[in-house]
């Protein structure tokens, strides 16, 4: 998931919001900005400090209580408005970067494949792909006109409250990216096909949240050509040997349509929905290293010879990444999320 972590929006510090005075006098931090947890700790250490004052023998403890009291007094929940602005800005930046430049591990596998390709037509296609990557980066324009739908991964540290405002902030960043990058407006109502024209809609952006040490937002724009070729199977526990065949079959059915050479995310285990989520998350893993199992599936896929853009050659796929989760003893869910050569994703650290 490391694709060049940038420091979050430093340009969002609003004038008139200086904390100078409050940093000098932490007691002045307004109560509503102190989380309940820290507030009770603050009270507890204040009481301990006051009690310990009466005994001359407990100087060390008294000093400790005093410092704990100060620490918990200074620890405050960031202002919700600042969290919102910083997350919206970080989402915008992550989206823009993700459609313009590829992660370094993806660039490496493309370069290695281009160097080892033996098919003349495929070599020409690799030249176009590498030129395209260079031009997009130089001009700061999207590398592909299908700028995808927004798939978002958030990691939230303990001091950031998990509220609906985070979802609003991400959507705001997506809307801004749509007009300013610009992105193609791709999100429609599934039945009326009405285009919302800002790349948001019901449950879109698709947001996945996990606890983490740092506050980060990752944008994985997913184009339709590859996504449409993804499949899921509820295999039987006895069909472990069929996993490779199912992946190869998925790529065979897809043929030239998902813009090979592919990056293939495979989710094994969990539940029906969980396996699909795992398969997509697998695309965030470094693609320039593979386990023996992943390499074995990749070799099976490449024996198909579909090659770059379905024109034939050695590289139908560049990498297979597998993620697993515990599952029911009676089931073996396997999901295959197909991604084109442009395995776009970018992570930005949010700094409220």
């Amino acid at each position: 998931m490391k694709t060049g972590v940038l420091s979050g929006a430093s340009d969002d510090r609003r004038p008139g919001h200086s904390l100078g005075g409050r940093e000098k006098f932490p007691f002045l931090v307004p109560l509503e900005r102190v989380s309940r947890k820290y507030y009770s700790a603050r009270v507890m250490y204040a009481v301990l400090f006051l009690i310990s004052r009466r005994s001359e023998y407990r100087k060390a403890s008294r000093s400790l209580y005093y410092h704990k009291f100060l620490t918990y007094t200074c620890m405050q929940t960031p202002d919700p408005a600042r969290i919102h602005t910083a997350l919206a800005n970080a989402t915008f930046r992550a989206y823009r970067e993700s459609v313009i430049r590829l992660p370094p591990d993806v660039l490496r596998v493309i370069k290695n494949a281009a160097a080892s390709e033996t098919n003349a037509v495929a070599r020409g296609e690799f030249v176009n792909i590498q030129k395209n990557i260079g031009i997009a980066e130089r001009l700061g324009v999207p590398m592909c006109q299908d700028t995808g739908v927004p798939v978002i991964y958030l990691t939230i540290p303990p001091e950031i409250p998990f509220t609906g405002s985070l979802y609003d902030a991400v959507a705001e960043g997506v809307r801004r990216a749509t007009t300013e990058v610009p992105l193609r407006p791709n999100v429609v109502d599934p039945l009326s096909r009405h285009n919302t024209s800002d790349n948001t809609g019901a449950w879109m952006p698709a947001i996945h949240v996990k606890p983490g040490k740092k506050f980060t937002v990752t944008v994985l724009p997913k184009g339709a050509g590859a996504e449409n070729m993804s499949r899921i199977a509820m295999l039987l526990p006895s069909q472990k040997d069929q996993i490779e065949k199912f992946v190869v079959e998925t790529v065979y059915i897809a043929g030239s349509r998902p813009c090979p050479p592919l990056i293939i995310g495979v989710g094994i285990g969990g539940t029906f929905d969980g396996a699909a989520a795992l398969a997509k998350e697998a695309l965030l893993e470094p693609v320039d290293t593979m386990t023996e199992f992943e390499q074995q599936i990749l070799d099976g896929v490449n024996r198909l010879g579909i090659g770059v853009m379905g024109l034939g050659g050695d590289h139908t796929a560049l990498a297979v990444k597998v993620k697993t989760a515990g599952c029911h003893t009676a089931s073996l869910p396997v999901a295959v999320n197909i991604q084109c050569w442009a395995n776009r994703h970018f992570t930005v650290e949010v700094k409220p």
Partner: protein
Amino acid sequence: MTGTVVQLHAPLGDEILTLRAGDRVELSGLVYTARDEAHLRMQEEGIPFDPEGAVIYHCGPVVKDDRIVAAGPTTSARMNALSGFLFDRGVRALIGKGGMDGTVREQLKGRGVYFAFTGGCAALAASHMTLKGVHFPELGMAEAVWVIELDRLPLVVGIDAHGNDIFEAVRESARKAFQR
């Protein structure tokens, strides 16, 4: 399939009949973008440009301030059943990604070719393009017919005028490999 690159200039003529599947080509001159909606519209209302020797590009570009920002190819197979009338009016070549079916392969025989352009390479394509005009703008950015002047866009012949089709050959060998 030699290392030489054939230079072509649209509108095209009989010179394309000598091309072979797998040949590399650099195409200059005017091309017209068209996706599903534009094909249906042209079938009903007629072709809004001179189709003689014309080249159709399966593409829904991103256009901003009269400039092509990104213009990679879309999946040509969606236009499999919509392309015959174009060749009857004199269209000589299609550009797209992923190839087309046996119907189009037959329609191209003795008349035209299908060029493949690398999927996803929208920035590269845009760097070889100048926007010249638009037909059917009411269809929206992706579906309108954009008139674009190409400057040596690098293509590969996917289907030639003699029934040779790289995509079909690869599909066939993939089928054999899968069944093994």
